[in-house]
C-alpha cells in the first residue's frame, strides 16, 4: 500500500494508447481512491461503495481544487475584457479546448464546442444540422439501446419536419449486430445516431463498423460517447465520427459542461444554435454576422469555471491512463459478473461479452427499487429504474433494473460489499 504515485506531466501518445506514456506501471487503486475526498465516508454506518458511476462519477481533488483556484485567482468573463483577469480566464478556457482535442484526438481544437452537457450537444446538432440538412422523408437510424437524450431531440425534429426514425433491434444478449444496421440503411438515411456504450446494459456498440457502413451510403454519424469516454480511449479520427458528444460529469469532472465534437467542415456548414453575446462577429439591427465555429455555438457567458474543471478532469485521467483504467474496470466487471452469477435469484440483463463495466440486473421477487433501498442501507449506491431508456426497458419487458456501474476507484472490496448487500435482499424477500 506504500507505492508512491509520481504525478507525471500531461502526455499524449500518438496512437490509440492515449496517455500510455504518462501512466505509472502499477494500478494503485487505493492511492487513486485517496484522490476522491467523497469516497472516505460512511453511509448509514457502512463504508461507501459508490457503484453509480454511469449516472455520474465522483470528483478528484485535482478537479475540485482547480475550480476553486481558478475562482480565487483568475476568474472573470472571457473573450471580452482587456484586463488581466479576462486575459487569463480566456487563455485558460480556450486551452481546455486543446486538452479536449488531444483527449479524443480531434484534428483541430476548433472542432470542440462546449455545451451544457451531452444532452444539449445532441439538441444542438438536431436543431442546427438537422433543421438545415434534413427534409421530410429523410431517415435517422437509432438503436433500441439509446438513452432518452438520443431519442427525444430527434422526435422533436421529426414532429417539425417529418423525418422518419428507424430503430435497430438488439439481440437477446443486448448486442447491436452490424447486419441489423446494414438492413435498415437506405439512400434515405441521413444520420445514424448511436451510443458508443449503452448506459443501461453496458454494451459496447461496434461504432467503427457502423460509421463505415453509414459513410458508404452517404449518411452522417453522431456518437453518444457519454459512457465511453470514462471507460476507454476514444479517437474520433480513427473512428471517423462526424459528431461525438459527452458530458464532463461522467468523466470525473463537473456538471453543467459537456462537449460536442464535430468535423470542422460540418460545423462550418451549420447555422448558430442560440443567438446572443459572444457568438457574433457584428450586430446591427438590420443584420448580424456570426463568428466561426466553435464560438458560433457558444452564445452567452459559458460555464467558464466548469470548463476549467473539465480540463483538470482530463489531466487527472491522463496521470492514470485510460487504457489502464479500462483494464482495471475489465477486472472489476469479470469479478462482479462471476459473483453476481453465483446468486441464484439474480439475473444479469445484457450478457454480451462486449461490455463496459456496467451491470444491469433483476432479482426474483425483489423490485429494483427495493433492491436499491436495501443496498443503500448497507452503504452500497446503485441506480434502480429505467435508466432513461424506457423503449429498451419495454423491449426487455422490464419496468426497471438495478444497475451497478464501476469507475476507476472501485475495488474488488466494493463488489464484495455489493454481493453481501444483495444477500440481505434475498433474505428479506425470501
Amino acid at each position: 500500500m506504500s507505492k508512491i504515485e509520481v504525478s507525471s506531466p500531461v502526455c499524449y501518445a500518438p496512437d490509440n494508447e492515449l496517455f500510455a506514456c504518462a501512466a505509472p506501471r502499477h494500478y494503485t487503486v487505493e492511492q487513486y481512491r485517496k484522490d476522491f475526498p467523497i469516497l472516505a465516508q460512511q453511509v448509514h454506518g457502512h463504508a461507501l461503495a459508490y457503484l453509480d458511476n454511469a449516472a455520474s462519477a465522483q470528483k478528484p481533488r485535482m478537479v475540485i481544487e482547480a475550480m476553486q483556484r481558478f475562482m480565487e485567482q483568475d476568474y472573470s468573463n472571457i473573450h471580452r475584457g482587456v484586463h488581466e483577469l479576462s486575459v487569463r480566464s480566456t487563455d485558460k478556457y480556450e486551452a481546455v479546448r486543446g486538452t479536449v482535442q488531444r483527449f479524443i484526438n480531434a484534428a483541430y481544437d476548433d472542432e470542440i464546442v462546449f455545451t451544457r452537457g451531452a444532452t444539449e450537444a445532441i439538441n444542438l446538432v438536431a436543431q442546427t444540422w438537422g433543421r438545415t440538412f434534413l427534409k421530410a422523408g429523410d431517415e435517422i437510424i437509432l438503436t433500441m439501446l439509446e438513452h432518452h437524450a438520443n431519442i427525444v431531440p430527434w422526435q422533436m425534429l421529426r414532429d417539425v419536419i417529418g423525418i422518419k426514425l428507424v430503430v435497430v433491434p438488439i439481440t437477446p444478449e443486448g448486442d447491436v449486430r452490424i447486419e441489423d444496421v446494414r438492413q435498415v440503411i437506405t439512400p434515405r438515411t441521413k444520420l445514424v445516431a448511436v451510443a458508443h456504450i449503452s448506459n443501461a446494459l453496458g454494451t459496447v456498440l461496434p461504432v467503427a463498423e457502423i460509421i463505415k457502413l453509414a459513410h458508404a451510403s452517404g449518411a452522417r454519424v453522431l456518437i453518444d460517447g457519454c459512457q465511453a469516454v470514462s471507460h476507454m480511449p476514444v479517437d474520433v479520427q480513427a473512428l471517423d465520427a462526424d459528431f461525438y458528444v459527452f458530458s464532463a460529469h461522467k468523466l470525473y469532472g463537473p456538471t453543467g459542461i459537456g462537449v460536442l465534437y464535430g468535423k470542422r467542415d460540418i460545423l462550418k456548414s451549420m447555422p448558430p444554435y442560440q443567438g446572443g453575446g459572444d457568438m457574433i462577429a457584428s450586430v446591427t439591427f438590420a443584420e448580424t454576422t456570426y463568428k466561426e465555429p466553435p464560438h458560433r455555438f457558444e452564445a452567452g457567458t459559458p460555464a467558464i469555471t466548469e470548463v476549467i474543471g473539465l480540463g483538470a478532469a482530463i489531466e487527472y485521467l491522463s496521470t492514470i491512463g485510460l487504457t489502464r483504467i479500462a483494464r482495471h474496470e475489465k477486472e472489476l466487471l469479470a469479478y462482479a459478473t462471476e459473483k453476481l452469477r453465483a446468486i441464484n435469484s439474480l439475473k444479469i440483463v445484457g450478457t454480451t461479452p462486449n461490455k463496459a463495466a456496467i451491470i444491469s440486473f433483476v432479482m426474483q421477487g425483489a423490485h429494483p427499487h427495493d433492491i436499491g433501498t436495501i443496498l443503500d442501507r448497507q452503504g452500497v449506491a446503485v441506480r434502480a429504474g429505467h435508466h432513461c431508456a424506457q423503449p429498451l426497458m419495454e423491449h426487455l419487458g422490464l419496468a426497471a433494473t438495478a444497475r451497478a456501474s464501476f469507475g476507476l476507484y472501485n475495488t474488488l472490496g466494493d463488489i464484495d460489499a455489493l454481493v453481501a448487500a444483495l444477500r440481505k435482499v434475498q433474505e428479506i424477500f425470501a
Partner: protein
Amino acid sequence: MRETALDSDLRDLYQDLILDHGKHPRNFRVLPGANHEALGHNPLCGDRLMLYLTTDAKDIIQDVAFQGSGCAISVASASMMTEMLKGKTIREAETLFHYMHGSCTGAAVAATNIKEDDADRVQALAGVRHYPMRVKCATLAWHTMQAALKNEKKVSTE
C-alpha cells in the same frame, strides 16, 4: 451488532405485513363495471397501477381492485388500501387519504375518525417516512384513488 441494527432498520420498512401484501396482493384484478378508475404512474421507478372503484348512489365504495406492477412498497400499499376502502364512503376515503399522507410524510396527523385497524395498517406503511425517496411508492395508490374518485384518469407522482 451492526447487522441487528440494519435488520431492525430495514424491518421497519419491510414488515411482514408489507412483504406479504407485496408478494400476494389482494383485490388484484380488473373490476368490470367500475364507475371510477385511474392510472397511477411513478416515472422515477416505473411503477404503474390501474385502480378501479365501484361506488353506489350513496357514495359508498362497494368494490375496489387494482392491477399493475411496482415495488414491494407500492404494491403492498395498493393492496392494503383496497382492503381498507371497501365499505367506506367517499368522504371517509378522503379522511383516510389525509391520514395516510400525513403519516408517510411525517406530518403529525391525529387518527380522528380512523378505525384502529386502519390506523395500524397505515402506520405499517408509514415506515417509509424514514426513506424520503420511497414516500411516493407508498402514496402512489392513494393519489390514484383520489384521482379516480375525482374522475381524473391519470396521476403521475413526478
